[in-house]
């Protein structure tokens, strides 16, 4: 097995406890030891509620947030340290798509110049107009926007411009933070269709950070679920979707309302709120909300069982294989 394109081992990110906290106040862990390997051409979806640390993980991989512990490996070789210099290698082969694309554009720079920015920074020669138009076209953005300023773009157009910029240095990994946030149903598909295409054509790996179940269902090869900065389950998409082992994963997948009035749920799948990282629950940190909680869960934190190939779960009582669920009555799409 060739080494992973990029791998995090027990990645840890701390935040000082309060604005005037002194050194002795215990720092709070946003990421508490997350390990993940991403292979070329693979689309990994990282799922979790707000505060689970998923956005922080994406930024920590590129050093935009300084990790406090653990290791990051590029093509198998670990980074010497977490200084900005050592992240240069990763950044030259990675692109980051932000949750709010408009805020990731310089308001006083035209879209064309912005798309060519990575090329100019990497010193890959002057960005000829055809190249930029080609990139825009690849991302489904018409080239009449190239001379415009960012504030003239709609949400969907801004997202496509961000993808065009990401493609301009043919990255080996694209980290996409909530790629469909704020998009209407009618153009959500437009953005989602880009990822598999790019992945096949350039063998680009994707780390997609989202809490949208339908994004996961359609583009994920591999799924990772985070809770309070720890990984609770990960594995191939098909298995996780059809047979989630961790109660939290099951709750997350069921929480999303299905647009079919005949398949409504009687009660919310999980109650309560995400606890604050300043007051982490004892034992298994999900026990305060878990419908299947047992006394052991309250006292003892579960280890990460990775017996099955590529499938890991952190739960004392993983859920059994569900009996074949009634076929999800879907309308076949006639187009």
């Amino acid at each position, binding site marked *: 097995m060739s080494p992973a394109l990029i791998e995090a081992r027990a990645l840890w990110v701390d935040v000082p406890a309060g604005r005037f906290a002194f050194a002795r106040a215990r720092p709070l862990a946003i990421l508490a030891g997350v390990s993940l390997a991403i292979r070329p051409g693979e689309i990994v979806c990282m799922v979790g509620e707000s505060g689970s640390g998923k956005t922080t993980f994406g*930024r920590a991989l*590129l050093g*935009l947030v300084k990790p406090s512990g653990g290791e990051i490996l590029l093509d198998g070789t670990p980074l010497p340290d977490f200084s900005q210099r050592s992240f*240069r290698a990763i*950044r*030259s082969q*990675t*692109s*980051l798509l*932000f949750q*709010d694309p408009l*805020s*990731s*554009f*310089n*308001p*006083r*720079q*035209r879209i064309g110049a912005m798309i060519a*920015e*990575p090329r100019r*920074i*990497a010193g890959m020669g002057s960005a000829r107009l055809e190249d930029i138009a080609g990139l825009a076209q690849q991302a489904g953005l018409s080239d009449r926007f190239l*001379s*415009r*300023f960012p504030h*003239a773009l709609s*949400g969907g157009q801004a997202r496509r411009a961000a993808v065009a910029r990401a493609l301009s*240095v043919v990255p080996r990994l694209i980290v996409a933070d909530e790629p469909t946030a*704020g998009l*209407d149903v009618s153009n959500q598909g437009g953005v989602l269709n880009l990822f598999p295409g790019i992945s096949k054509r350039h063998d680009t790996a994707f780390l997609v950070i989202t809490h949208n179940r339908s994004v996961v269902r359609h583009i994920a090869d591999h799924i990772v679920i985070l809770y309070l900065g720890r990984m609770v389950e990960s594995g191939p998409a098909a298995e996780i979707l059809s047979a989630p082992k961790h109660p939290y994963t099951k709750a997350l997948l069921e929480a999303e309302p299905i647009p079919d009035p005949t398949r409504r749920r009687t009660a919310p799948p999980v109650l309560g709120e995400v606890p604050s990282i300043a007051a982490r629950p004892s034992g298994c940190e999900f026990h305060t909300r878990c419908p299947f909680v047992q006394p052991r869960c309250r006292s003892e934190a579960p280890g990460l069982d990775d017996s099955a190939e590529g499938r890991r779960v952190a739960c004392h009582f993983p859920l059994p294989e569900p009996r074949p669920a009634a076929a999800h009555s879907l309308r076949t799409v006639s187009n």
Partner: protein
Amino acid sequence: MATDVTSIPAPPIAGEPGIPRRMALTFVEVVSHPLGAIGVLLVALIVLTALLAPVIVPYNPTAISVKERLADPSLTHLLGTDQLGRDLLSRVIVGTRTAMTVALTSLAVALAIALPLGMIAGYGPRWLDALFILLFDSISSLPMIMLGLAVVVLLGPGVSTVILVIVLYSVPSYARLVRTQTLSLKTRDFIKAEQAMNAGTMRILFRHVLPNVVGPLLILACLDISTVITLEAGLSFLGLGVKPQIPSWGNILSDGFSVIRNSPVPVIAGGVPLILATIGFTFFGEALRDALDPKLNPERKP
């Protein structure tokens, strides 16, 4: 997502208008603004007087003629004469030139210093930022007049001293503005995006931070012209500004003050142009700010 109910969508922008056309558009908007109209008129009057001073001045402003001492305004001396018999109109006209040269030079110098300092403080490492803040706070804790007095004691009065004092006073407030703007830009995703593309610090500062910081800074500089004119006049009023023989509204007022019980004319002659200039530039600045960037409220103190 829900449309923002209160904002009416702006008409589609064909292509962005070039810089010159945008400036013309802004100028029209400033003049149509009530404050702007008054401001532009006064500013034009002041600037023209300053430029044409050597041509339009009726007498030599420093020519003393004791017998015509404290003459009331008359056809020969439109604004009368001061306690040394010097023609007040000429001194006011040349005073305008002094005020404008001091104001514009010190503004330019202050901006040139404050821009890089502010950006470095805002973008640089935290310890450097803390150092700059300490320096800015120290200088701005020296109240301007006290700062001026201390500097003048050591370098003696004169135009260069006044400019140095005004620059020393303005740099901290401008640098602080640039620093706050840079700090807020730094949290914006587009700077993180540049960092994620391995952009060098210099590139980020000059291609991305500078264009977004210069705009608000220039607007505030316009608003600050009247403060700088006041500073120059204040220092000259205390006899610590320009040398006494060079006419300045400040020293006209100072001489007028010493003879205020004898004749109010010098005080009025020196004070009115100063008021017209300060109000003119402030109105112009306010209108410009509303036209360009309404959310910006200046940190100016009276």
